[in-house]
């Protein structure tokens, strides 16, 4: 399958994530949108990795060219998992204190 499809899919997912972060006020949805953006990037990394690796295999068997991006993806997933635990904890704390998950409520930090 051509790489363009992956790029367009990733762009769409990423844009949905950005728009969601910008427009939604519910902290959980914002959080989900951030995850969406991360995974759009992950998808793109895997797609490019497959493309380069496949091209490298044509000329030499047993090559490792292009697979490093896939290792990156694992790193990102690990970091995202850690981030989810911290982020959800913050949201839970926020809800306990304010009985709301509206992020605009946090603008009290301004002063």
């Amino acid at each position: 399958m051509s790489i363009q499809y992956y790029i367009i899919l990733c762009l769409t997912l990423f844009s949905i994530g950005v728009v969601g972060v910008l427009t939604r006020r519910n902290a959980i949805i914002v959080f989900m949108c951030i995850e969406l953006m991360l995974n759009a990037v992950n998808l793109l990394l895997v797609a490019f990795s497959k493309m380069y690796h496949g091209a490298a295999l044509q000329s030499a068997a047993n090559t490792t060219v292009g697979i490093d991006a896939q290792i990156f993806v694992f790193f990102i997933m690990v970091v995202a998992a850690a981030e989810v635990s911290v982020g959800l904890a913050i949201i839970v704390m926020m809800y306990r204190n304010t009985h709301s998950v509206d992020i605009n409520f946090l603008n009290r930090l301004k002063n």
Partner: protein
Amino acid sequence: MKIIIGFIVLWPLVGFLLNGLGRNIWSKKTIATQATGYIFASFVFSLIAFWNVQEQGAMTMHYFDFIKTSTVKIPFDFRVDALSSLFLLVITGVGTLIHLYSSAYMHEETAPHYARYFAYLNLFIFSMLLLVLGDNYVIMFIGWEGVGLCSYLLIGYWFTNTTYNNAAKKAFIMNRIGDLGFLLAIFWLIVKLGTVSYGEVLNAESLAKLSSTDITAITLLLFVGAMGKSAQIPLYTWLPDAMAGPTPVSALIHAATMVTAGIYMITRTNIFYTHSEIAQTVVAIIGISTALLAATIAIKQNDIKKVLAYSTVSQLGYMFLGLGVGAYSGAVFHVITHAFFKALLFLAAGSVIHAMHHEQDIRKMGGLKSKLPITHLTFLIGCIAIAGVPPFSGFFSKDEILAAAYAKNPIYWFLGLIGAAMTAFYMFRLYATTFLGQFRGTEAQASHLHESPVSMTIPLMILAVLSAVGGAMGVPEILGGHHWLGHHLSSIIGAEQALHLSHTTEWILMGTSVAIALVALLIAIGKYSKQADGEPQTALGKFLYNKWLVDELYEKAIIQPLNRFAGFLKEVVEKNVIDGVVNGTGKLVQYGARQTRLMQSGQVGYYILFMVLSIVLLFLIWFNDLAITRFFHNLIQ
């Protein structure tokens, strides 16, 4: 020898540093002894240098490289030759006498000011020696600026008096105008020849490299420098005002040494002047005009120092006439004799002022002959010398210049003769009003009249002897001499125009000038020995009394327009344009800050929006950049 020459210059510097830094430590006696002693040491070393030049000829001493670039090399060299060794003797010799005189003249000052005075005076001698010893125009320029600075400091020595301060500033600014000309001439030389050393500039090869325009421009620019320093039209007005300084300063700086720096410079460069007919004519015309203008003003002045000041301007005019007609050794001769008799006249005038308790108006003097016998006699000798009566020194030097002027163009000679008559007239008007007739001062002054102390009369007597016999160094051949000075300077002066005058003509010229001087002298004594000049009555008298209204003319034509222009800049340009730009910048920043502050609303969503938009913008720019780069890349290929 290198060390001896170095110390000629260093002694006054040592004196300056000791007196300047220790002005609160030393007693007045120590200060005066130190200052005079160091100058005397310089004099002794100068004598050694002079004999050495007599024995072995000119010498150039290299000390270090002052400026060194790939294209221009300006070494710090000293040159002792026939010309500079003569000037060394005059500067340190007359300088020693004037330091000695000052030690008594300035006795009323407190010790720190006394030390300040001597420190300035020593610094002046240091700069002047640098000026004459330097082996290139840049070293000369350093000394040139140094003497200008010391002149400023000493004119404004009594700094609590605003008039004196203004006189000091006037001298400094007038000199700056001239200095600019000198500086431009140096630049011109560097551009065209790449060197400023006398040895490399003043020879036939470099003359061949320069076009006649170059030579004329360089000589005229140098002359502009000389105009400022040596008080020639149109930059002479500072010199009479410079009399605000203490009288010994007037004698040393504004009569004997500094003002002759211009003559020294032109004599040094004589090979160039000889090759530029235009420059020679300009020098001669400016010289004779200055001589006549200053002489007419001197006739009507009543301040004893002002008369001498205008007389100095007039005599400097004679020297420039001499330079202009090619009588370089005659001009140097006049510099030397003038240094003797004008220093003498100033110091004697100082002695009179001292006795009269700072009264300078000759209308309030009179009859001082019996009260101040030594001062009277020495002043009279000075007057006779400057009037050009043989066998006193002024006669020989002035006659040499006049004879050369006649050989060049009889009109110069005739005008010079009129000037000589006026010189004799105003000098003896000054002498008669001051020393003859009845005393016209107050009772208190009359009871205080006294002859000055020994340390003031000794310099007077030495200078009187020198004024009387100084002419011996340049007795012309028709009077049985062999003109030692002319032979002495022959190595410096490339091509002195030989005089083509028959002996009869020379006798006639000499006789005429002596006769006319004697007549003017007798008229002046007859007219002024009984009474002083009253207020000027005639229009001409008032015009001369007011100094040809030159100061007023400068005020109207230059200073006021400049002030108005400065006022325009201050009121209009400064307030509207410059302040507008400065305040506008501030206002713009303030306005921008007020507006952009609103962006910081505290809504996290907006922050993220701005972040995303900025990233998108950066990407757009980056891609655009790539596109543009690719576009140019393609274009080149």
